[in-house]
């Protein structure tokens, strides 16, 4: 135990970029990707992680004063800053990530051998959902790495079982035999959709109500562009925060906030993709290994939820949902975070829901609106341990000490994650 805590202390001292670099180089060598690819992958991911936190720094600097201003002016306590996929930075940079990856692989292989699951958990990138959750638990339990790892593995194992339940439907709807999608909040959206769609199909009038995806895309498609969406949201928040500012100063601040939020919406996912790039060699090596071992069985090979986004109803529903969800979060009492960066997860939820609504835009919108409500509350309720995880990793420490709170829907508001966190926090 002492060795473990010494190792953790040493790792933390290095900072998260170097943690992910070292972890990926070691895992790369372990999974035989070749030392050149291992080194390149490790450094690339470290670069992505550093870039991710740079962007988050910019957005905190721009958004935090604005939401604070709104709070003093209107008593609007929407003061949590939405950083959404910055959680991927926790996921790959917290000290237990290597242990989590190895343990999950061992547990998954055992479960496949024992025929407890058909899902081969090969998509290493998507481990980040479980690993971020693990980081939150680690932070909530005063730095207990083991509890963090167990919580994260439990989350991912349940995700795999959910993938077993949804795989056939995904495969048929998207013409992709052999895949499964065990990704966190996405696969949960499918399971959530099943009873809701059943109910909607029994409401007269609603049953056959639909909207044309092409029409929506043509008229409102612009709002689906991350840069445009970010700019518009930034300006709206800016108007509330600085609307009566003196002369040009108000306008400058409003437009400046718009641009900053647009920067975040465009650059944040790019940085995340650089981290993902570093993990690719390991993923490919694991896929090959697992495919060889289990080639005579019916298995579902885990892939990223991005493969579900093909249907036109996905983008159409997403465009309608953007303003609806921001409005909903603004008016719901007790919800303390306005979704901005978190809106990036909506297309993935839509991709998971459309196979169940058979591509019906209206039903998809209704399902996701209902689905998002627990995310709004859970992300507010557990924001402290999430923020603490950033602080313990040495990110934004000064601002956090001054009261800054960082939240997200994906993973901060995750429904399954909420119950796992509550359970594991009992041991803290």
């Amino acid at each position, binding site marked *: 135990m002492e060795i473990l805590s010494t190792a953790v202390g040493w790792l933390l001292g290095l900072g998260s970029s170097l943690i992910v670099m070292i972890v990926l180089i070691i895992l790369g060598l372990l999974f035989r990707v070749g030392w050149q690819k291992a080194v390149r992958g490790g450094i690339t991911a470290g670069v992505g992680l550093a870039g991710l936190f740079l962007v988050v720094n910019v957005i905190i600097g721009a958004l935090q004063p604005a939401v604070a201003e709104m709070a003093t002016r209107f008593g609007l306590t929407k003061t949590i800053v939405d950083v959404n996929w910055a959680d991927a930075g926790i996921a790959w940079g917290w000290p237990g990530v290597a242990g989590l990856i190895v343990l999950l692989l061992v547990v998954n292989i055992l479960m496949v051998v024992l025929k407890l699951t058909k899902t081969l958990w*090969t*998509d290493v*990138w*998507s481990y980040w959902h479980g690993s971020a959750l693990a980081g939150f638990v680690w932070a909530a339990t005063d730095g207990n790495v083991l509890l963090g790892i167990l919580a994260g593995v439990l989350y991912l194992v349940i995700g795999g079982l959910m993938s077993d339940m949804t795989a056939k439907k995904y495969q048929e709807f*998207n*013409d*992709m035999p*052999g*895949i499964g999608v065990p990704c966190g909040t996405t696969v949960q959206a499918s399971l959530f959709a099943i009873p809701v769609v059943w109910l909607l199909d029994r409401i007269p009038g609603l049953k056959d109500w639909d909207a044309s995806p092409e029409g929506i895309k043509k008229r409102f498609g612009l709002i*689906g*562009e991350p840069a445009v969406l970010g700019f518009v949201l930034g300006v709206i928040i800016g108007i509330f925060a600085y609307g009566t500012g003196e002369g040009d100063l108000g306008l400058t601040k409003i437009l400046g906030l718009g641009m900053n939020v647009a920067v975040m919406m465009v650059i944040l*996912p790019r940085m*995340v*993709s650089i981290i*993902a*790039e570093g993990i*690719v*060699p390991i*993923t*490919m090596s694991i*896929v*090959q290994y697992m*495919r*060889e071992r289990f*080639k005579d069985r019916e298995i579902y*090979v885990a*892939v*990223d*939820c*991005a*493969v*579900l*986004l*093909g*249907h*036109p109803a*996905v*983008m159409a529903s997403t465009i309608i949902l953007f303003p609806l969800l921001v409005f909903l979060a603004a008016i719901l009492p007790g919800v303390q975070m306005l979704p901005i960066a978190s809106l990036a997860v909506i*297309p*993935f939820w839509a*991709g998971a829901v459309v196979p169940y609504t058979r591509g019906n835009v209206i039903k998809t919108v209704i399902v996701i609106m209902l689905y998002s409500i627990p995310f709004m509350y859970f992300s507010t309720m557990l924001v402290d341990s999430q923020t603490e995880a950033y602080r313990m990793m040495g990110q934004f420490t000064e601002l956090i000490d001054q009261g800054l709170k960082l939240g997200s829907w994906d993973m901060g508001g995750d429904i399954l994650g909420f119950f796992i966190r509550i359970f594991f926090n009992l041991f803290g």
Partner: protein
Amino acid sequence: MGKLIVVACGAGINTSTIAEDSIQERMVQEGFADVEVKRILMADIDGYVGRTDLVLIVSMMKIFRTFDVPVIQGMPFLIGSQDEKNVLLDKIVDIVKNV
């Protein structure tokens, strides 16, 4: 003139990166110096379809429309065995050679 292969996925984060990696590696092996492999969001595809250097679209999702250039479904890059990947890569090499 150079030739462009776009690898399109829903988020441009993970799945397209995996396919891009495999294709890039093969292009280098074949010695195709003038082939660019670019990963993009499927939502941005319209910015590329008009380009005269575009020779192939590799999609990581099901596609619900048609294009003037060949489209290859890239799922084997994610879940396929090495043999399945090679079949796909041979096909891509063929297309690039014959343009």
